[in-house]
């Protein structure tokens, strides 16, 4: 059982890393990875929301009717995001200002809705919490990696502190928007190469369920997956 929890936790970090493997939450990934501080703050904020929403959705999984599932998830996620937003504005105003509109956009971050739909509604509260933590750590890790590369090599600084020796070698485009796409693409490529040895990522297992509409979707592959999953869970 303990091993199972650990695997849930680790899965989010590497094998099903939300940003680099599941390719979810790309908008904040590109927007806030210009510097390490904002990337870490964004990662933490999203992780808090992810864990809390996973826990609540999992706890209410038997109460929430299927038909109004998605609106309920959205309300719950939006509530946590709003709470985080208000708390940050009150107690960490500098981070609130740094994240700007992207903080509010956590509501529509696909990682969170995706995990609610794929995991929390089918698993226990504790498992969902671990899943949220794992996915959150994976999100933080990916953001940190991107931000580290973009800030150190692009802006020649680390967490806002100027690195003297990097000033001569910095590549300004990395800190700009095109650099974000570039670094992102390279990281995905590296991740694919690394996971290739283990037989590649099982894309099937999250391709269709990652979509919030998977359950009501009538196209064949979705139905098949749904059935498969049910069989596996049973």
């Amino acid at each position: 059982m303990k091993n199972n929890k650990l695997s849930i936790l680790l899965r989010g970090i590497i094998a099903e890393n939300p940003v680099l493997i599941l390719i979810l939450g790309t908008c904040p990934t590109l927007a806030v990875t210009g510097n390490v501080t904002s990337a870490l703050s964004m990662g933490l904020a999203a992780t808090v929301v992810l864990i809390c929403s996973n826990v609540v959705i999992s706890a209410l999984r038997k109460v929430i009717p299927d038909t109004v599932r998605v609106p309920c998830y959205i309300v719950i996620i939006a509530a946590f995001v709003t709470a985080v937003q208000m708390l940050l504005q009150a107690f960490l105003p500098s981070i609130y200002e740094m994240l700007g509109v992207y903080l509010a956009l956590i509501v529509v971050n696909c990682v969170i809705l995706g995990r609610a739909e794929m995991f929390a509604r089918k698993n226990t509260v504790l498992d969902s919490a671990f899943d949220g933590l794992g996915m959150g750590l994976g999100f933080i890790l990916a953001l940190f990696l991107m931000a580290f590369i973009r800030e150190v090599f692009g802006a020649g600084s680390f967490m806002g502190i100027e690195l003297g020796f990097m000033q001569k070698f910095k590549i300004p485009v990395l800190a700009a928007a095109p650099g974000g796409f570039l670094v992102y693409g390279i990281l995905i490529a590296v991740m694919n190469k690394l996971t290739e040895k283990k037989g590649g990522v099982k894309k099937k297992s999250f391709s269709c369920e990652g979509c919030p509409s998977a359950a009501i979707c009538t196209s064949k592959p979705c139905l098949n997956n749904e059935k498969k999953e049910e069989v596996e869970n049973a």
Partner: protein
Amino acid sequence: MKNLKPTLVLSCICMAVALILSGINMITGPIIEAQRNAAANSALLEVMPDGTDFEEITDLASLNLPESITNVYKETSGKGYVFRVTSTGYKSGMVIMIGVSSEGKITGSKCLETQDTFGKESEIDNKYNEQSLADFAPHMITGATMTSSGYRDAVSSALQGFTLASGGKLDPAIALEAKIPELAPGFTSPAAVDASGSFKKILKASNDAGFAYIFSAGEDAFVALVNATGGCKVFDADGNDVTSAHEAVASEAKAHAAAAQKSYVDALTTKITRLYETATDITAVEISTFNTVVAAVSFKVDGAEYYGFYSRSIGFHQMDVYFVIDANGAIAKMDANQFIFEKEYFHGFAGMDDAAYKAGFEGLTTDTWNGDAAVIATATMTSNAIKQSTNDSFETFNSIKGGAQ
């Protein structure tokens, strides 16, 4: 009935969420509000460290404040006002915050924005502290005269604004002082010199074009202007010529000016004799204009009558421009001391043929002069100064001719 459960569940979730969020808002709301106020107040507190809370006065129109004041903030416990003033230094767009205590003393000043490049404005920040309208003394920084003047004007506006905002009336003498540039456009940057006699304040033009004497009679204040040739006029606060009613003060002003004024007649006479070797009957003429003309003479060459004018306008720096106008009002000769000087120091003059430039003025009359002859490419400031000198010389010529007829 089938739809009832989903509706109920969603409503319950929404209500629970609303309750929780309102709870959090009750905790964070006041903190966020306090932070917003602190951010807005920090700029105000900087110029009024004693203040606690500020409230913006929105109805500025009724206060009739100087135009340069864009925002007024009142300290809510009555410690004074903070003014946001826009001013013009070397370039327009200086924004200065100035705090004035309830006693009318400056509590602090800070330049928030400026287009001037020297960065000298920060050296003036807080230098006016403790000054009031009564003991206001400009703080000038060498090498940044324009910036210093802009700052001075802003502080002066804020002090006037304080008097008006706190329900007082402006001393008419101060309102008059603000009118001097309008009444005597040629008196550049009038600065106070020691006052004496009946005069509350005496101001001297930086280009030596004359003096302005502010005095009061009864409730009202007046200004006597004396130009460099001794011509005098008295104006009231509305800009009306009231010389005839104040003859005594006018002669006192003339006497003061005669003693303090630098005469440019000799310099002009020398110039005329160089321009016209056969000039005779060179006589100084008293003029009644208050422009940049500092000396005027009439003279004769071979029986024909001419007038010579010496104008001190300001271009990039002080200019000395001469015009000779014949009896018909056409320019006979033009010259300026700066051509030799500028050619040496300013690249804009390198390709300039000054003989041709001067000749370009010859024959021009008030009707045919349109400013084109004065243009020197890449030397806008100098060109504008010469334009002003030309206009002023024509104006003075016309006033002499008009007076003679």
